[in-house]
């Protein structure tokens, strides 16, 4: 390990912070490569397609009528900020996949957004209570700069995997790199392993 002359660093590091992350506190930085879209809930939809027995498409009212689910915990952005102790409300991806019934050959998902953004994940990272489609943050409607009306939430991975303005999941039998992944970022993105970039 190479030390930096004169650097001592801030003490009292929160054990909830993965390596290389800092606590952003009350702020919530917005990092998006695209223009912020204005999406109407009247025309919003979310669909699951690809390797499923029953492709399904939900409207805004339909998805909100499903049994709800909450996440309370931390989120970690690859740009090194983490936001600790936050809460979201929406629906578990498990609930959505139960309706679509993934085929045994499905091993990966490509999440898509209404803007054209994409991100890829192993299917195992969005099942078993680890992923949500969320529309409330701290009890309030999710702001559109943060992905409202609804975004994907996969809080155990770096936050670019939690696609803003999410429009659906496509189930695949192979890993298909999404937007940031084609631009040098890691295919999985586990913050505790610091999987930030391709090759990490």
């Amino acid at each position, binding site marked *: 390990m190479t*030390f930096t002359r*004169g650097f001592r660093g801030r003490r009292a590091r929160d054990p909830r912070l993965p390596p290389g992350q800092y606590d952003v506190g009350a702020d*919530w930085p917005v990092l*998006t*490569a695209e223009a912020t879209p204005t999406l109407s809930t009247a025309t919003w939809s979310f669909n699951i397609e690809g390797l499923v027995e029953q492709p399904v498409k939900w409207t805004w009212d339909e998805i909100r009528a499903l049994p709800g689910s909450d996440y309370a915990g931390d989120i970690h952005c690859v740009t090194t900020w983490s936001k600790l102790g936050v809460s979201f409300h929406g629906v578990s991806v498990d609930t959505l996949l139960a309706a679509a019934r993934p085929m045994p050959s499905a091993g990966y998902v490509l999440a898509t957004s*209404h*803007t054209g953004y994409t991100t890829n994940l192993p299917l195992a990272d969005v099942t078993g209570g680890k992923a949500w489609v969320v529309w409330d943050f701290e009890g309030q409607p999710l702001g559109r700069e943060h992905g409202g009306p609804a975004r994907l939430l996969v809080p155990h991975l770096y936050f670019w995997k939690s696609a803003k303005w999410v429009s659906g999941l496509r189930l695949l039998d192979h890993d298909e790199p999404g937007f940031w992944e084609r631009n040098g970022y890691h295919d999985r993105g586990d913050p505790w392993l610091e999987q930030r970039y391709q090759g990490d």
Partner: protein
Amino acid sequence: MTEQLSDAGPPGSFPRPGKWQQARVTEIRQETPTAKTFRLALSEPAPYLAGQHFLIRLTAPDGYRAQRSYSVASAPGDSGEIELTVEHLPDGEVSSFLHEVVMVGDELEVRGPIGGWFVWRGDTPAVLIGGGSGIVPLMSMLRLARRSGRQDLLRLVVSVRRPAELYYAAELPGPQTTIIYTRSTPPSWPRLAGRLSPADLPGPLNPEATGFVCGSSGFADAATTVLHGAGMPVERIRIERFGPTG
């Protein structure tokens, strides 16, 4: 709409940043009262594109680490040196250390280049709009254009609150650049202080141009609205946002 946000190359050619490496600080320049440029000599030269960034990682004697990413301000070249301009954030752990402790001759650990989206390769028309320290990656693009004699391809608009906050003040002016001040202007400046508006855009947009917008999230949204209002499709606008929102 699934293909509009794609760049980079075919599978297998994904850009990968290099490994962590040591870099020696060869020069430090004060750009504004709160911004310094650090010129770093890389131990392993790392070719980069205009618009990319590097990470700086600090390590304490007990192993504690902190890292941040900073845009490259210098033009791509083969000198094995990069320049990073760093704004001193009042509570910034890394920027405070860089500003208050680091001296010429120090070694810093860096990694890069990073980013394959917000890059200009030097051969297509582009409109660049930067707010405050958002000028940094755009400066790399402007320097590249000037050095390669392709100034005709670029138009740069930079917005700052007041003259003392303008980075690269001596180098920026030229037929490609427009400087706007939102709070106070230099004496007898032809434009009144005020926010970016469509009238600040340099003439009709080239329909082939790509937009590069860098600044705070609020600035980025405002600049995107101006470009879109002037006829640039949103899918031609690339955005790099930084800083917290309320």
